[in-house]
């Protein structure tokens, strides 16, 4: 396979993928096989936490693909992430069935107490897993496609595009906050019971989800690697640096941007879908522009335009967040803010840039 050839040239990627594989295999073993109390036991709590990081890492890959390689600073990837999450959430809601508090076999609880008579049309079909998975891919893709169709055709670039993506996710945030939209309003979707018949509270299901996230991340990494190393990928960096020249050698830049952007949205959607069962809730806050900016920061911290940088950045920043919110809740925003400033000023190539310096200049 071509991808393997590409992988051989990507040392950082090999290490990262290796670690992901190790994690995907070792953590479930340490969780299920190693008895509690043993030093090597990984608690379900820790595993869920790691699973969440893996989803974030996949999301960071999606952001890096369009920002690092294509030069589109998307401040709206949270929108795609959340839409994927909502699609998954809707499936999980339908799975609750009559186990909801009102015992309504069809309507989710929030619809019952808002006196809704029947299931809205856009909730139809989500009782099937395959349909929900299709929507996880299609809905973010469609939004990205329509948005990109307009934006890239009229050559909205740079800062303007960033601000437009921000407006997009902000508009969705407001829309999903509305109870009338039929997505549970501010409370979002929660209280999930099971997935594909397996109880979400069982350790084995959690292990399965963790493995799924690891595999998704690895596959996402490989597909991004394939794209970026292909001629198309090289063209992407060419567009990032000299958009006009690419046009004058005969490429329809808007189409390339459109497809890469859409693919990136799909990745983000998948990340969102995996994220929801890990954390057990999806709500409109995920649409907030601040969340989207934070995603960009993961990539910047890790080192943009290197795929492993994105993965490293996402895991690192989120780990720091988990740690700092416990260790120093009052100061943690100072730390995060300072991190942004220092990374942009001092480490334009991210933390992996420190290690990478030698091999690129050689």
């Amino acid at each position, binding site marked *: 396979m071509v991808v393997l050839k590409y992988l051989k040239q990507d040392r950082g990627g090999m290490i990262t993928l290796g670690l992901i594989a190790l994690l995907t295999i070792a953590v479930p073993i340490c969780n299920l096989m190693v008895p509690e109390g043993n030093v090597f036991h990984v608690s379900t709590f820790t595993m869920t936490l790691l699973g969440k990081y893996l989803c974030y890492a996949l999301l960071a890959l999606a952001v890096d693909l369009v920002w690092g390689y294509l030069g589109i600073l998307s401040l709206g990837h949270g929108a795609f992430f959340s839409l994927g999450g909502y699609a998954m959430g809707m499936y999980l809601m339908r799975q609750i069935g009559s186990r909801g508090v009102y015992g309504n076999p069809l309507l989710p609880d929030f619809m019952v107490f808002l006196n809704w008579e029947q299931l809205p049309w856009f909730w139809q079909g989500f009782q099937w897993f395959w349909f929900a998975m299709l929507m996880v891919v299609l809905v973010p893709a469609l939004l990205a496609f329509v948005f990109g169709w307009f934006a890239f055709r009229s050559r909205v670039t740079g800062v303007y595009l960033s601000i437009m993506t921000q407006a997009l996710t902000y508009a969705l945030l407001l829309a999903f906050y509305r109870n009338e939209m039929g997505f549970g309003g501010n409370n979002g979707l929660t209280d999930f019971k099971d997935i594909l018949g397996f109880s979400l509270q069982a350790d084995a299901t959690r292990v399965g989800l963790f493995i799924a996230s690891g595999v998704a991340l690895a596959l996402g990494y490989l597909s991004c690697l394939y*794209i970026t190393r*292909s*001629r*198309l990928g*090289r*063209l992407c*960096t*060419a567009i990032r*640096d*000299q958009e*006009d*020249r*690419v*046009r*004058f*050698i*005969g*490429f*329809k*830049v808007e*189409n*390339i941007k459109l*497809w890469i952007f859409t693919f990136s949205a799909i990745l983000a959607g998948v990340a969102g879908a995996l994220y929801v069962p890990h954390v057990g809730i999806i709500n409109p806050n995920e649409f907030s522009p601040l969340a989207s900016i934070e995603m960009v920061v993961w990539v910047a911290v890790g080192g943009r335009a290197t795929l492993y940088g994105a993965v490293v950045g996402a895991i690192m920043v989120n780990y720091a967040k988990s740690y700092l919110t416990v260790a120093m809740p009052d100061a943690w925003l100072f730390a995060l803010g300072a991190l942004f400033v220092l990374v942009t000023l001092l480490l334009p190539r991210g933390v992996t840039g420190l290690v990478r310096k030698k091999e690129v200049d050689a």
Partner: protein
Amino acid sequence: MSVLESMRSFMRRDQVFDFLIPDVPPNLDLTHGVILYLENLNVSFDGFKAINDLNLYIDDGELRCIIGPNGAGKTTMMDIITGKTKPDSGSAWFGQEINLLDMDEPEIATAGIGRKFQKPTVFEQHRVIDNLELAMAGDKRVWPTLTAHLNSAEQDRINEILKIINLEEHFSRRAGSLSHGQKQWLEIGMLLMQNPKLLLVDEPAAGMTHQEMDQTAELLTSLAGTHSVVVVEHDMDFVRSIANKVTVLHQGSVLAEGTMDEIQNNQQVIEVYLGE
């Protein structure tokens, strides 16, 4: 038509959907021996007339030099030809049948017009051969580009161009590390990879040593004949060394046209340009 039939025609494997068929521009028709027609062009930016009733014809296989003081409209003219700027009025035809004003930049490029910018624009992050590979003529849609791999014929073509532009030894260097002159050459090489019929070359000699300049002149002359070449240049010595026909632009329209000698003796031209 029955449902079954329409289904069948929908599923036929030897056909693709209409919207998937790329827009292939009409063939280049050169029956009258003229490759480029620019007629009655007008462009203004916020009241400033950059192009004022411009008429210009380029013959097939011709090497034409265009000179003119700053702000004469040379770059704007190139922008119109390559689709970057749309004129307020007038027409621009490539051969007999291709209306340039209906097309955008990539379509024009695919139709056979290559352009080199004033400032060399190459993909600095990429290696020299990558630059050439990306510029290579071929299927430029998204999916084919994703799966594309160099075959031996294409590899040979790249090597050939590398030789022409004198960058054989530097093939794996990053383009950003090339000298200014080498970048100019690489850009010309990228143009050639596109197999254009018409080359628009903006200030090719800028920043070159004398020796490089000579080589460039030689290269451009050798291209004429099989290609039509339009060169915009400030360096009069360079123009003299390559041109047989020169057009002088002034305030957005053609002031004079003729051989270098005729131009040099044209009273108007001397006043506005050479005489200063």
